[in-house]
């Protein structure tokens, strides 16, 4: 037992029953079906913009790209353009592959001892694999959910649904992405619970999103395959939301409101959680800067102009007094008129 995941689990459990009982027993359908989803979306958008603009305002004082290959050089060693890019185009390619294939996660290794004290580094493939499944399943499920929000449903979306259900298991047909999402979320959760050193570094804020997303997938799957819901009424509600004419049809059932409340919580929580890596990945200086540190000087644009007072200026200011006090000066006052031009020249260095 570990209170970090128990607290997260209980929180998710309580949230579900809040929505379930709120709609089933108290009839707060308008609250959970209209007001909270709208509020959550507003918090999501404003919070997201606020976070990203905060990052945009922050300084990048140094150029800190991670270099995972040979840098550009004049010695004839072949450059690894993908892992040590020096041009904007190569950086875009690196970012793209990072985002769609999680290359840096793939490099993840685990150290082991073999035959006593021999160190070996093994590929730790499962985190990468399940993270990839998790994210793609999540994306597919969200895109497929657009069928509740678009009317008529675009052809491309219908094609996606057909592909996703091509196994034609059961009725309604099983969507593979929905099942994959639940399986991957459970894997990522068990990994944090059962691997000791991962559990040690896991916080409640790591467990909560996993329980929440697992809960969303679980309630969604319940609705589709187990205790069916009236999809036509639900689409009436969702279409009401997106056409700004909210309607709350009768008899949708607490399970749906539980699902929707989970999603609302996820949206509102998103900007203030680790899930902001959705925006953060684009702004990672270790990934999005070219490795041209030797070719171009990186000036932090947020550097404020530093007021300098060079020795020459200092001497100009106090020369008479210094001479009176018998201190050595570089330029004697008598020579001043002749050296006028030379005295000005150090000002160029100031820039």
């Amino acid at each position, binding site marked *: 037992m570990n209170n970090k995941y128990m607290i997260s689990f209980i929180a998710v459990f309580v949230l579900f029953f809040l929505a379930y009982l709120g709609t089933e027993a108290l009839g707060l359908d308008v609250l959970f079906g209209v007001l909270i989803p709208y509020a959550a979306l507003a918090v999501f958008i404003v919070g997201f913009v606020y976070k990203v603009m905060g990052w*945009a305002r922050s300084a990048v004082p140094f150029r800190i790209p991670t270099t995972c290959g040979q840098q550009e050089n004049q010695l004839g060693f072949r450059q690894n353009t993908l892992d040590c890019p020096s041009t904007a185009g190569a950086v875009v390619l690196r970012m793209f592959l990072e985002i769609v294939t999680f290359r840096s996660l793939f490099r993840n290794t685990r150290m082991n001892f073999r035959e006593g004290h021999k160190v070996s580094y093994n590929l730790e493939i499962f985190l990468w694999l399940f993270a990839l499944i998790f994210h793609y399943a999540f994306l597919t499920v969200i895109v497929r959910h657009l069928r509740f929000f678009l009317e008529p449903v675009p052809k491309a979306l219908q094609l996606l649904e057909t592909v996703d259900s091509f196994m034609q298991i059961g009725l309604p047909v099983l969507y593979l992405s929905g099942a994959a999402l639940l399986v991957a979320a459970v894997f990522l959760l068990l990994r944090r619970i059962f691997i000791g050193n991962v559990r040690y570094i896991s916080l409640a804020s790591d467990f909560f999103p996993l329980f929440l997303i697992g809960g969303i997938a679980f309630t969604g799957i319940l609705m589709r395959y187990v205790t069916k819901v009236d999809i036509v009424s639900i689409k009436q509600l969702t279409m009401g939301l997106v056409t700004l004419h909210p309607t709350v049809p009768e008899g949708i059932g607490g399970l749906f409101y539980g699902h929707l409340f989970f999603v609302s919580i996820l949206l509102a929580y998103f900007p203030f959680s680790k899930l902001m890596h959705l925006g953060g990945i684009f702004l990672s200086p270790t990934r999005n800067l070219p490795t041209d540190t030797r070719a171009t000087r990186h000036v932090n644009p947020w550097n404020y102009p530093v007021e300098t007072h060079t020795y020459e200026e200092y001497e100009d200011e106090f020369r008479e007094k210094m001479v009176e006090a018998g201190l050595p000066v570089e330029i004697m006052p008598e020579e001043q008129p002749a050296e006028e031009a030379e005295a000005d020249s150090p000002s160029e260095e100031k820039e």
Partner: protein
Amino acid sequence: MNDRGKIIAGLAIFIAIVTLPFWFNMGKAAPVPDPKLTAKAKAAKECVESTAYMRAEHMQLLDVWRDTVVRDAKRVYVTEKGKEYMMSLSNTCLDCHSNKTEFCDRCHDYASARPYCWDCHIDNPKGEN
């Protein structure tokens, strides 16, 4: 290095995507489908099971029917009220709901459900439309 312009452009695209459903449906009224009952269905007054059950679970019922017929070779279904029906997609459902395009399809288009049953099963057994 100040990339605020690029970042704001990226944010604008992100917000446009997130709010896509609002733009897509702007100025459109979303008509709620109204499945039309045939004269025969109206005369029968009620469906195989209660209307609420049929609305949400008819695919489940069809799944049970299919398996019972094909695997157990039993063709008669007894409803909760004790009425008997032949378990058949084309000959029972489409007997009362012979107007598939105006009944089944109206809901299915709305909910983006495309049952593949009609690859094999005849969807117009009475040859009406």
